[in-house]
């Protein structure tokens, strides 16, 4: 086993002076993972995977990149990848967040996709470090059967590999899969594997070469509602008179097993636990503190089933759609609220202003397929620029609102496939002169003044032909 690696390494050394790029691929080979533990949490419809990797530099050159690889089917559903490294010894450990970026590698087998983790300090030869990786998968649980009646519970498939797909040699690895309930219809056995309660354990497996793959299929009950926001448009309108108005338009769908046949209200009301167990009855939105004038409506009017709880640290809005959502059912609604401007708008030292606001969707435990954030800057603001902690598509628009003449600049940001961990802050910088605040009042005042002048003039002019 060691011999071919050495040989390739030697080859790499020979070509090093000629082809710099080979260096990268060669860096793959002198790392190895001495111990890997993976915990897959399937309890909601967002799959959370916690990966603990003990990475060892078995080569001779220091390296600062560690690659994670994913099968192409998972990459499409991958919402976010985060990596942390533990620092310090024993009790004084701290976790440091590391940069993670998608990359391409030239000799990827079967279109495997890669994410590179950039270490703070290059890993020297013979050293090892422990990485904590968290990645979230959306739309990865496939309902089977695809259509269920009201009284049935929702069963889903989850597909993965018993072995961690990795470009590195893994000496020892274990995978724990946590299911939402003890009801597991079936799971692929890859010995040694066993199930206890809500946990399925695969492994430990010893010494698997790079790109080892062993497909598994787990069929289990998951009655958590699959709340998916197909499209969310958040509009944040800044008014320098002291208000920040947020309007959020949702298109919500229950993405679980489709509802089949009748919907019986009498069954739904009399036996709520047995009937429509996977239905989506309410949602919780976490809004910023000091929120005011909250409304919750759709295109045909106010929806009366909502409750707002506020305290000094946060506001919680519990909303019920007009009807319980069964699999495949949709609903659209709008949530709007006002916020005090001073909580979110700040000034930089160089006289610019910036808005500091959360990016993601305020609803808990929901996946957003497509999010558009529109930050409407006040009329007359210039040089807008947005700073977002992850890559988004950006462009500018113009919006005309109350009595605008030149229009307001709108910074539009779009991102696909969001999960609640994307609720981090973003900033929009711009310059604004306070004199523009007076433009509209002055305009109105002058219009009325002219109107009165015209009236006075009319009363004093005799327009009749005959005297």
């Amino acid at each position, binding site marked *: 086993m060691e011999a071919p690696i050495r040989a390739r390494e030697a080859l790499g050394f020979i070509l090093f002076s000629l082809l710099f790029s080979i260096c990268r691929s060669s860096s793959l080979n002198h790392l190895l993972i001495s111990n890997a533990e993976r915990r897959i949490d399937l309890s909601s419809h967002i799959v959370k995977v916690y990966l603990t990797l003990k990475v060892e530099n078995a080569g001779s050159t220091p390296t600062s990149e560690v690659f994670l690889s994913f099968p192409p089917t998972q990459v499409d559903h991958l919402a976010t990848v985060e990596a942390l490294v533990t620092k310090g010894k024993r009790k004084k450990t701290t976790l440091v967040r590391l940069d993670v970026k998608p990359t391409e590698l030239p000799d990827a087998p079967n279109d495997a996709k890669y994410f590179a983790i950039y270490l703070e300090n290059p890993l020297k030869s013979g050293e090892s470090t422990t990485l904590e990786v968290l990645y979230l998968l959306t739309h990865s649980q496939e309902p089977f059967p695809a259509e269920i009646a009201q009284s049935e519970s929702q069963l889903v498939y989850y597909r993965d590999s018993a072995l961690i797909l990795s470009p590195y040699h893994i000496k020892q690895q274990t995978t724990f899969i946590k299911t939402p309930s003890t009801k597991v219809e079936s799971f692929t056995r890859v010995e040694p594997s066993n199930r206890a309660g809500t946990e399925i354990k695969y492994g430990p497996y010893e010494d698997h070469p790079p790109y080892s793959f062993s497909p598994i299929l787990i069929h289990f009950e998951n009655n958590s509602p699959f709340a998916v926001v197909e499209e969310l448009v958040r509009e944040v309108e800044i008014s320098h008179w002291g208000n920040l108005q947020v309007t959020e338009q949702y298109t919500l769908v229950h993405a679980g097993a489709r509802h089949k046949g009748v919907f019986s209200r009498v069954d739904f009301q009399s036996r709520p636990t047995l009937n429509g167990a996977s239905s989506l009855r309410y949602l919780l939105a976490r809004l910023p503190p000091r929120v005011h004038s909250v409304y919750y409506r759709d295109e045909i009017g106010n929806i009366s089933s909502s409750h707002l709880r506020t305290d000094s640290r946060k506001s919680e809005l519990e909303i019920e759609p007009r*009807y319980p959502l069964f699999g495949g059912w949709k609903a659209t609604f709008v949530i709007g609220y006002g916020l005090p401007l001073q909580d979110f708008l700040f000034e930089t030292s160089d006289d610019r202003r910036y808005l500091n606001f959360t990016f993601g969707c305020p609803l808990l435990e929901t996946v957003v397929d497509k999010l558009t954030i529109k930050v409407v800057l006040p009329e007359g603001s210039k040089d807008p620029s947005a700073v977002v902690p992850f890559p988004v598509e950006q462009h500018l628009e113009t919006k005309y609102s109350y009595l605008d003449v030149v229009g307001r600049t709108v910074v539009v940001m779009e991102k696909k496939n969001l999960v609640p961990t994307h609720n981090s802050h973003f900033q929009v910088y711009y310059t604004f002169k306070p004199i523009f605040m007076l433009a509209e009042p002055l305009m109105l005042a002058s219009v009325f003044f002219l109107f009165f002048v015209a009236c006075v003039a009319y009363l004093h002019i005799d327009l009749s032909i005959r005297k």
Partner: protein
Amino acid sequence: MAAPETSTAAVPTLYTYNTLRNAFGGVLSFFILLLIGVMAFSIRLFSVIKYESVIHEFDPYFNYRVTQFLAKNGIYEFWNWFDDRTWYPLGRVIGGTVYPGLTLTAGTIWWLLNSLNIPLSVETVCVFTAPIFSAFASWATYLLTKEVKGTGAGLTAAALLAMVPSYISRSVAGSYDNEAVAIFALIFTFYLYIKTLNTGSLFYATLNSIAYFYMVCSWGGYTFIINLIPMHVLLCIVTGRFSSRLYIAYAPLVVLGTLLAALVPVVGFNAVMTSEHFASFLVFIIIHVVAFVYYIKGILSPKMFKVAVTLVVSVGLAVCCAVIAVLIALVASSPTKGWSGRSLSLLDPTYASKYIPIIASVSEHQPPTWPSYFMDINVLAFLVPAGIIACFLPLSDASSFVVLYIATSVYFSGVMVRLMLVLAPAACITSGIALSQAFDVFTGSIKFQLTGASSNTEVDAAETSSSTAESQTDAVKTEKPEETAKNRPSRKSKKKEREHGEKPSTKAKAEKKRLLALPLESSVISLLLLVLLGAFYVVHCVWAAAEAYSAPSIVLTSRSHDGLHVFDDFREAYAWLRHNTDVDDKVASWWDYGYQTTAMANRTVIVDNNTWNNTHIATVGTAMSSPERAAWEIFHSLDVKYVLVVFGGLVGYPSDDINKFLWMVRIGGGVFPHIKEPDYLRDGQYRIDSQATPTMLNCLMYKLSYYRFVETDGKGFDRVRQTEIGKKYFKLTHFEEAFTTHHWMVRIYKLKPPKNRIRGKTKKSKSKTSSTTSSPKRSGTKKKNPWQ
């Protein structure tokens, strides 16, 4: 420069004092009018404050949908709009069958606001159109009454109209219906007519025809104008009040107005063809004849004139007889005598219930009850007679119009509760006149008593100290002793006193003050009583606006010991239909819910509130009153996917489909005779308990309403009918429950797809279908269907 001024100093100061007073009065009445407008607007906002900013009821949803279409697609698309989402499979030509006034008004407001970059939604504009126009209507009332009886009466009438409950019921925020703008148009047209009559100006006559055009655009009630104004003209001619002003007021209106009215697609040639308009043309001829006669009389000597008259009358009579005979023959040849059904039911109140059950089934077409007069116009009902009397003192062209207006509208309101709305402005105008005249008299006499005390102290002293009938007659010593004698009993009844009060107000100016002088105490007390009456009116109006007329009817609330309960089932069902059914699915329901379904759920409906095709409605009525299998056949032939029924039995919502069911049977039976009303009644009684007839218990409406209802409480107790239902356990074979709302108020069923034909059974089932009732029914539909 200074010298001449000082010499004539006395005259200018008096003059400036008067102009200053007038200017002050003008500013004051301007601000009062402004406040009246604000009040008219804000009293109608109870619905927004108590509920939400939402379109109300049924018809407004259609208007809202049309306005949305207009805002989105523009005016030309709007005229050509063929709506295929209603009256499936017939469709409806919206552009040619709606009164476009309201829609165009709201669309224009919306467009104007948006071009000023005020981004209000179409819905917001629609919700607030009615309150805005009620402010306009109260200003128009001011103008009209001012023309009749002066500024004071105008302001009083405007204030009364701003809060008259009858009008509020139709114009609260969200009640986006034709009447909202039509009442303004109606009053404004009348104002311009009176204005033209008073001034004889062609300018106002033209404006009048334009206002009439706006009214024609807005509401079918324009026929009231085009009949009332000719009646008034005729009245003027008969009473010898013909003048050139009358001619200018009337002739341009008929010519221009008819031409303009014919431009509105929904009216079109009806403006000259239907009997509703004949009166105006007849009077048009008469006024010309009269004008001609006056002209001839002017140029001929009296003797020649007499000869001419005999000649013309003998020839003219013969011609007239011939023309009238032809006309009568023409009119009689049409089955409805050239009148539309709604107009006929106005002339003959029993017509609709005899012949057109659809018109009779609408609750607002029923005659009103006495309490509804008190509810809708309150104290005005008592003030109106006083106002009429005031109009006769003196009788002018304008005041005779008001008298005619109130007399006709009282009759119409007695026929249809909906036309209470036409009565309201008339009642406000006459009561405004009455109140204002009474105030004039009382304040005038108080003023006289206080200021005039120095000039004739002995009279006043005699009056105030003794206040006997004799002393007063002595003091007044003129031609009406019996009237002053009435002064004593007047303390007991306000009304009499008011009538009495107006009479002296019309006397000659010189003697007026002295003659009008009522005793100080009686005038003060009467004033207080009048103020009290006004206060009572205001309290009632605010109560009516807040409690009685503000409910949007699509969301219901009830108060119980543990707080407010909201029943938002209608929108729950419509939202469900909107998001969870296919865009082209057809939904069948009773026609009441047609407009709401197309507007809120955006789904195609079979019938809706525009009841233009009786056969189609009868088909749905027949389906609802047929057994399941036959109903399925009918619905399936109409390509229906979902059936929607409204059921109030669980929460006690009384206007549900079971309560409307007899109308379905009646309307269905009117076209398809195999549906017989007695089959659904047990001994003439409509019941759904165990005594109900088997036809009733097996019809589709019963089954869809009560499907699995018994499982809610184990007994199946219907809270509307206050009884246990007759048939408790049954299954549906051709329908399946698709959705039921939280309080069961709306239940939606899906038609099961037709079963696959199994070999061997084919023939049997085929023969069965042809033998069942459905087949003749379908052929019946085909035969009656004018589109096939």
